[in-house]
């Protein structure tokens, strides 16, 4: 692959369809941050370990620092910015704020999208299930207790809505 080779991808990004031509080597995280200005997707380790770059690919959490943009052609992507409904916070975002599940906020987008995906699959997860699901994300500030509280609170909020 030469440095100048390009690819064209069709994606649905936060509900919006778009077609982009990019250098073939573009990482998914670079595409989101540098091309689409979705800077809520953060780079913490660039080795798929910390999870700050987690986004949803067809609803499943993936680490965008470890994928090429080319791999998402024809798929649906949701970033932390896409969780909001107009001005309304997603219940997971609301719960992370209220329960103080974030401090510096750098890891938060990754946890929020990952937790949102969990609650889509499992509307009332147990603490061990939450821990298992979030073990691919690192937070250095909270010690995780309030993150787990936040996910439980979000689950309650979503159940009340239903």
């Amino acid at each position, binding site marked *: 692959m030469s440095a100048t080779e390009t690819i064209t991808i069709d994606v649905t990004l936060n509900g919006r369809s778009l077609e982009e031509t990019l250098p073939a080597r573009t990482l998914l995280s670079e595409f989101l941050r540098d091309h689409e200005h979705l*800077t809520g997707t953060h780079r913490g380790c660039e080795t798929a370990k*910390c999870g700050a770059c987690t986004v949803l690919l067809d609803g499943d959490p993936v680490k965008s620092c470890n994928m090429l943009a080319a791999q998402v052609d024809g798929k649906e992507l949701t970033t932390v910015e896409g969780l909001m409904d107009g001005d309304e916070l997603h219940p997971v975002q609301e719960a992370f704020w209220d329960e103080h599940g974030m401090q510096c906020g*750098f890891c938060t987008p990754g946890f929020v999208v990952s937790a949102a995906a969990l609650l889509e699959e499992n509307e009332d997860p147990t603490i061990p299930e939450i821990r298992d699901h979030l073990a691919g994300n690192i937070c250095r500030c909270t010690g995780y207790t309030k993150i787990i509280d936040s996910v439980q609170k979000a689950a309650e909020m979503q159940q009340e809505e239903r």
Partner: protein
Amino acid sequence: MSKSDLTQEHEQETRAEATESEGEVGKSVNSKFGRRLVTGTGQFVDDINISGQRHARFVRSQLAHARIVDIDTSEAEAMDGVELVWTGEDLEPYIEPYGLILPDEKPLSTDRARFVGDELAVVVAKDRLTATLAAEKVDVEYERLDTVTGVDDALDDDAPILHPDLDADPDIDVDGNIASEYDLQVGDVGGAFEDAAVVVEDTFETNKTNPTPLEPKGCVADYNPGEQELTLHSSNQAPHLMKEYLSEALADLAPSNIVVKIPDIGGGFGVKIEAFPHEVCASALSMALGRPIKLVLDRLEEMQAGRGRHDERLNARLALDDDGDIVGWDVEVLQSTGAHASFGPAVISSAGITSAGPYYIPNQHIRGKALYTNVMPGSAVRGFGDPQYTFAREQLLEEACAELGVDPMAIRRQNAPELEDMPMRSPTGINWRGADIHECFDRVQDMINWDDHRNTGRTKDGKLRGVGMGTLMKRGGNKKVAGTESDAAVVQMNKFGEITVLIGTASIGQGTETGIVQIVADTLGVTSEEVKPIIGDSDVTPEGFGVWADRGTIIGGSAAAKAAEDLKENLRPLAALMLDVDEDAVEFAGGGVRETGNPNNAVPMADLAHEATFANPEDRPDEMKDGIPLVGRARFDSQEAEVPDPKGSLSHGYTWGCLAVVVDIDPTTGEIDVVDVAISEDVGKAINPKMIEGQTQGAIAQALGEVLLEHYDYDGSGNLTNGSLVDYHLPTAKDVPLINKIDEVETPDPTTSHGQKGVGECPLVPVPAAVANAVADATGIRFTELPLTPDRVLPRLVEEGMREL
């Protein structure tokens, strides 16, 4: 329990204020920055892009210690998109040697490489990828030198000297690889140990770790040649200090020509205070090129060169008399400070003054050496030397109690001063006031069910169970060498009655800005929603020292309270006029001003502001005609903190407390599982209980990572073998327990605005000691080396016949 009159009076005042202001202080207010952070719309340094910027990238040393023979930059320079490649020689005209305590740093080394990851050259290119690829093409020719990887190597007679120039300089107290020496002696240590009933001694080895804020450090430097002004956007904890640091490191740039702007910061923990090579280099490059320069580190760079906690060896002795009084504390610290001294000498000395912890020990000798070694420099890290001293002290205390056959909890209580003994001076000159660790002991032992776990043996599933304790007596708000510990604040109102508080702090996630907002709101009688914090801009905010040493809420918060009071006094005459009452009948409450006790005669803040800004002054009395300031200002300068010599009360205040953990050890694998944690600290006044819980949980989890998982693994040649997050395992949600047994004591500090004390660093301090003591309770084995990983634990279980298959 009796309390000093001063304390009682302050408590009454605090209560009175709370009633008047409807209690914004003490409420679990949500983070002021939370909405942007949960939506991913915060702005971190890597999110900043300035038109015309270029990207810089370091070339780093592959060897731990080598003379630099030649750096060939030609191949990199020839690449498309590369603007320039600089070595230390090119940078030389722009910089001066600098360093926090010793002038032992240059952003690019010229003579030699001193650790793997040392910055040797810098590439500037059109984008980050090109800069990265070009940096790999820079060819460094080295001549290998012997490496100094630990304190024994450093002190060896034949050791290579890392900084021969400093060693030879008669004006600098560097001797060989000894960067600094410290010696503090009080009482008669020799006599105390001679006459003691029990003397215990041991050697403790603590681990080199990285607090690993999840956001790597970075900056965008933007020099305007017309203005001759440098604007540095940086992930940094102390915007005003950075002006000084940068002007020291950059030749011909005065602090008045530097503006520092701080975006959202993805964690700090102490390793984002000093001027780092990327900040100095990017600034010099921007000045040379007249373009913005962006330089954001990656994780490998952070692991190799981002700085972290020092590993230390502590040769320590503790002496008790027949009655169980601790009579002697004697400790020698050998600190592997790394290739540059940075904060290292202060980590020994600042923590040395408080190294006896919460115990009154009349005879103490604390000695230490910061030693240059060919590893990543250490820096300031949450706890700042206390976890290391505490690891030694609390274990020796338990060893001594075992020899005397007494209960260590009884000895802890016996040797810790009571609230009614205060105020008092500790033997090393610490000013102790208003702290109740005895209440903390009671609460923690109760929460953790101490007696159920102590000396009890095994769990139902065969794990070895134990419970252990650690204590803390931590500095909050330190005196600078220059002689002050202060912050200023401005509280102002616009024409709509909207209030802002401007303060020189930074937000690294700890919530200081939210606490300060609550303090201002409380004082002005409005809600926290109505006050906005303005921080992180050295041009906009008043002078202050930033966020470190647990100072933000005690020093900055007290300044903000004074500034809010000042605003009140400026508004009072107009308020009295509008309410048609005497000035002393004006009350600030309910989102505006009102006649004291009469909510029916009230004016909202917006109306007051409108009257001051838009109404015709001719309708006012003469003394108000020339303008009503909608601004309050103040500086809070600590009258408590002292410059130690070498005794003295370094800090504004001290937070006392204790923590206990329950551990289960798997006798088949040697794995330690911390299954429960309880903590109680005397925080003075909990400004925001939810945020205190968050800081406490985070600090404990961070410490558990350091105790159980993390350490820098250098091989004999000084290569870091675990420099990625794959190999350096940080705790995840599956590795740490839920931490909910938090019960804070509130004995107000009469010298701060609301009685508040430092919080953020404290809970980390006792954790390594508590875990080691719990392991000893479970196994009878004393572990003196960190971390407590299975490869250390299992062989000892085998030795003691406790291993099971």
